[in-house]
């Protein structure tokens, strides 16, 4: 499918979505509240985006941005969905009931960025020690003991 078709399919479900085509793939910027709706649509709707191959988060010092890379094993088209989160208390719906791989990725993002995924089955630390303080991949993370600056 071409970007145009994708756009109108998405707009039909979510008019408020904005688009950015400068990058390699079509970027869909949405509001974090609508994410669940879009996700379900992408997965089950005409788009058939059944493969979430990258889920991560970026810390722009003012806000956080969730980045979901989706592709369809049927139509072979990719889109990137972005949702901006508040820096103070980031929250977004989980999608691990739609793409099961999201469960681990979301746990990782949770401990690395402190993003709180609502309705996640068990949102615990996956990689870091249980008593680890702070969110290491945020830009303002400081660890004077372990982190030796070059």
């Amino acid at each position, binding site marked *: 499918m071409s970007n145009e078709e994708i756009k109108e399919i998405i707009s039909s479900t979510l008019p408020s979505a904005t688009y950015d085509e400068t990058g390699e793939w079509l970027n869909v910027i949405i509001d974090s509240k609508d994410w669940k709706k879009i996700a379900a649509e992408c997965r089950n709707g005409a788009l058939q985006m059944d493969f979430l*191959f990258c889920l991560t988060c970026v810390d722009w010092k003012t806000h956080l941005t969730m980045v979901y890379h989706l592709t369809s094993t049927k139509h072979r088209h990719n889109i990137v969905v972005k949702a901006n989160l508040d820096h103070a208390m980031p929250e977004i719906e989980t999608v691990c009931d739609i793409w099961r791989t999201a469960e*681990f990725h979301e746990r990782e993002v949770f401990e690395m960025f402190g993003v709180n995924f609502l309705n996640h089955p068990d949102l615990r630390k996956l990689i870091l020690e249980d008593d680890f303080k702070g969110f290491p991949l945020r830009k303002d993370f400081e660890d004077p003991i372990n982190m030796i600056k070059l």
Partner: protein
Amino acid sequence: MYNQTEIIKDTTNLGPEGELIINMGPQHPATHGVLHLVVTLNGETIKKIEPHLGYIHRSIEKMCESLTYRQFIYVTSRMDYLSSHINNLGCALLIEKGMQIEVPERAKYIRVILSELTRIASHELWLGAMAMDLGAFTPFFYTFREREMITEIMEETCGARLTMNYIVPGGLMYDIHPDFQKKVKAFIKQFKEKVTEFEDLVTNNIIFQSRTKGIGILSAEDAISFGCTGPVARASGVSCDIRKLYPYDVYDKVEFDEIIETAGDSFARYIVRVKEMNQSIRIIEQLIDCIPEGEFVGKTKNVLKLPKGEFYTRVETARGEFGVFIVSEGGTNPYRIKFRSPGFSNLSALNHMAAGSKIGDLMATMGTLDLVIPDIDR
């Protein structure tokens, strides 16, 4: 620095009647490296597996944010160290894509040949290690005999046996060794002779078959939903070979088959990898004789600056789709870098695959998942 009080908290607790909760790993011969599985047993039957990661989490993504684009490549060969060359290639490709660097043909050919050699080496090691998990020690030594030939070739050309840092943005660090082609041909010859050994020793062995057939089944839908890639997904009938779908370097010039099995059990995964080795040999045979003359590295500025924006490249490592996602502010080093590692997704399917089977089956399932823990933890 670490007194007794800092010993990490207990992860096991008394299960209900008849249940036994066992820690497998971090130090365990079968969890190559330091995977930590909390296995809930009922007698010999597995009820639940809960992976605990992070025992080799080296915060690579964080440290890459403070390395320049030339420097951060070498770190990636420490993630999936078995296909380190391919990881480096992925990063180099991204930088080249971002800065429109022209890569000379010669470099492309050599890169692809080395990638395939790396893939073979990785699969050889996996084969040996998996046989060892199933209790057969001897195949390990036979596979390493061939693998040693590859590492010799690597050593001669790249200067390192395992974590070679041979790729620089725009080409290669230096030209291949004069008798590179000769050695590779010799290797192909020996490999073709010896690969039949594993038919007798492993593939057709009744014990091996009964231990892998129908074990750890993963359906195609689950494979996609769990984001599995590489041999694991292909064994379940999902076509996901980046080399076919989004060809990079010269993969579009060569012809090879994407191996697809439909059974989705451990045996299928085994077969897929064994066949892939032959395909890799096929690719190398096509390329090895027609490496074009010319430069081995393109023209690049001394200081690399990636334009502002977001970039994503994927390459097919020995384990599946390895993706690099870089957010650039236009500076000399990435603003945010994320490695999408195949093992991470493949591991998340483990519980689904192994629950309800025996402990012995867990070994078969984990062995055929071919996990590399630093690749998962990063």
